[in-house]
C-alpha cells in the first residue's frame, strides 16, 4: 500500500537515507527500532509525505505521494501542541481544519482523553501539563481522525510503565478494531514486540532486520522464556547495528 522506491534523503549536506526500497502493507502494525539518530524520524516524515525525497519515489495506493494524505495521522516525537489552545481544542483541531466539527466531537474527544487518564485536563493549556500529559494529548489528537495509516514517533517514551501498558493495550485493541496500518517508532524492544505484526530494525538509513513478529503481548508481558529469548535476539540485532 505504501511503497518507498529507491528513496534517498539528505539534510543540506548530510545524507540520511540512500536508495531505501521498502513496502508497508495494509492493516499491518510495524515497529521500527534503531539507534538514536539513524534516521527513523526522517523515514517517518518521508513515508507520511511531510518530507519530499531528494531522490526516488513514494507510492501510496499506486499514486505518487506528494503531500500527507487525508487518511494519514501523525504523532510527532515532541508533543507539538498549540500553546494558545486548550487540551480539548488541540485535540479537536484536525476536525476544525477539515470543517467537520460536529456536536459529538467534543464528547468523543473527552472520552478519548479520559481513556488516557487526562479527562480532567481538557480545559488546561499545554503549559500547565506535565511531560507525559502533553504526549498523551498529542496521541489523542492523532487518534481522533480514524486514520487509515497512523504514524507514531515514540508515543509512549514519556510515560510510566502502568500508563504505557494500558495505552499499548488500548492501541492494540483500536488497531484490531479499525484495521489500520501503524508505523510505530520505539526504543523499547518489549513494546515493539507487544504491538507489532512486523518488526524492523534500522541502521544508517537501511533496514537490517525485517521479520514477522513471532510473539504477542500476553506472552511477552509474562516474561516467558520465549519472550526473553526473542528480546535477546532483537538486542543482538541492535548490538550488531551498534558495532
Amino acid at each position: 500500500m505504501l511503497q518507498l522506491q529507491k528513496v534517498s534523503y539528505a539534510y543540506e549536506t548530510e545524507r540520511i537515507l540512500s536508495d531505501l526500497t521498502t513496502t508497508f502493507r495494509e492493516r499491518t502494525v510495524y515497529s521500527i527500532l534503531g539507534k538514536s539518530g539513524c534516521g527513523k524520524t526522517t523515514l517517518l516524515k518521508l513515508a507520511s509525505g511531510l518530507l519530499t525525497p531528494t531522490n526516488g519515489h513514494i507510492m501510496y495506493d499506486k499514486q505518487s505521494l506528494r503531500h500527507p494524505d487525508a487518511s494519514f495521522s501523525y504523532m510527532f516525537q515532541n508533543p507539538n501542541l498549540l500553546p494558545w489552545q486548550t487540551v480539548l481544542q488541540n485535540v479537536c483541531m484536525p476536525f476544525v481544519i477539515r470543517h467537520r466539527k460536529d456536536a459529538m466531537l467534543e464528547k468523543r474527544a473527552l472520552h478519548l482523553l479520559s481513556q488516557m487518564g487526562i479527562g480532567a485536563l481538557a480545559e488546561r493549556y499545554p503549559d500547565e501539563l506535565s511531560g507525559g500529559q502533553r504526549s498523551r494529548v498529542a496521541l489523542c489528537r492523532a487518534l481522533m481522525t480514524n486514520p487509515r495509516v497512523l504514524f507514531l514517533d515514540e508515543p509512549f517514551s514519556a510515560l510510566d510503565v502502568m500508563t504505557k501498558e494500558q495505552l499499548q493495550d488500548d492501541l492494540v485493541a483500536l488497531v484490531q478494531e479499525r484495521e489500520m496500518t501503524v508505523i510505530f517508532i520505539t526504543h523499547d524492544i518489549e513494546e515493539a514486540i507487544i504491538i507489532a505484526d512486523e518488526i524492523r530494525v534500522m541502521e544508517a538509513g537501511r533496514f537490517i532486520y525485517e521479520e514477522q513478529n513471532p510473539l504477542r503481548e500476553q506472552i511477552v508481558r509474562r516474561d516467558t522464556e520465549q519472550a526473553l529469548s526473542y528480546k535477546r535476539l532483537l538486542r543482538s540485532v541492535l548490538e550488531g547495528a551498534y558495532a
Partner: protein
Amino acid sequence: MRKYMFHFAFFILLIWLWHRASLSMSELVLPSPLVVGSVFVDGWTSGYFWPHVSRTLREIVYGLSIGTVFGLGLGIMMGESRMMRQFLQPYIIMSQAVPKLALAPLFILWFGFGMTSKVVITALVCFFPILENTLRAMHQVKREQIELFKMMQASRFQILMRLKIPNGIPHIMSGFRVSVILAVVGAVVGEFIGANEGLGALIIASQGTMNTPLMFAVLINLTLLGMMLYGLVHMIETYGLRRYLRRE
C-alpha cells in the same frame, strides 16, 4: 499604593520644573503649566475642544482601521510570498520615506479637503509597523507546527489563520501598539495640511495667532488621546489575547 505616590510625586516635580522654566521665558515660547492648565480646563468646560478632539479621534479610528487592514493584509501577503515581498517593498518604503506633508497638494487633489485626505494620511502613516511586524511574525513558526497542519490537510489559508497569525500575535501586537501612536501623529499631520477642524488644525491656528498656551493645551489633549488609545490596546491584549502570550 506607595508606587503610585512616587509616580505622582515625580509628575508634580516635572510640572514644577516646567513652571520654573516658564518663569524665565516668554509665554510665547514656554507658557507656565498654570496658564496651560487653565486654557485646558476652559477649553473643555466651554466645549471648545470637543469638536476638534472628536474630529481627530474619528480620523484616527478610521485611519487606524484602514491601516490595520492594509498592514495585516500586505504583511501576510509579503510574509507568504517572497515574490510579493521583493515586488512591493520599494513602493512601501517609498510610501514611508516620503514626508506626507510634502505631498499635501496631491492628497488634496486626490482626496479633497475633507476628512478623507486625513484618513488616508493616517492610514499611510500607521500601516507600516503592523506590516513589518506581521511580515516577520509569519516566519516565526516552528517547522514541525507547519508539518502538523499539513498533516491535518490544512489549506494555506488555514495555516495562516490557525497557526501563523495566532502564533504571531505577540509580535503583531507590538506593531499595533506603535501604529496606534503613529495614527495620532498621522491624523495631526494630516490636519496640518488643510483642515479647519481637528487638533492639528487647532495647532496651526494657535501658531498663527501665536497663542502658545492654546497650543500646549492641544498637545496635552493629544497626549491624553494617545494614552487612552494605548490603554485600550493594552486592555484588548490582557483580556482578549492573553492565551496567545502562552509559550509551551
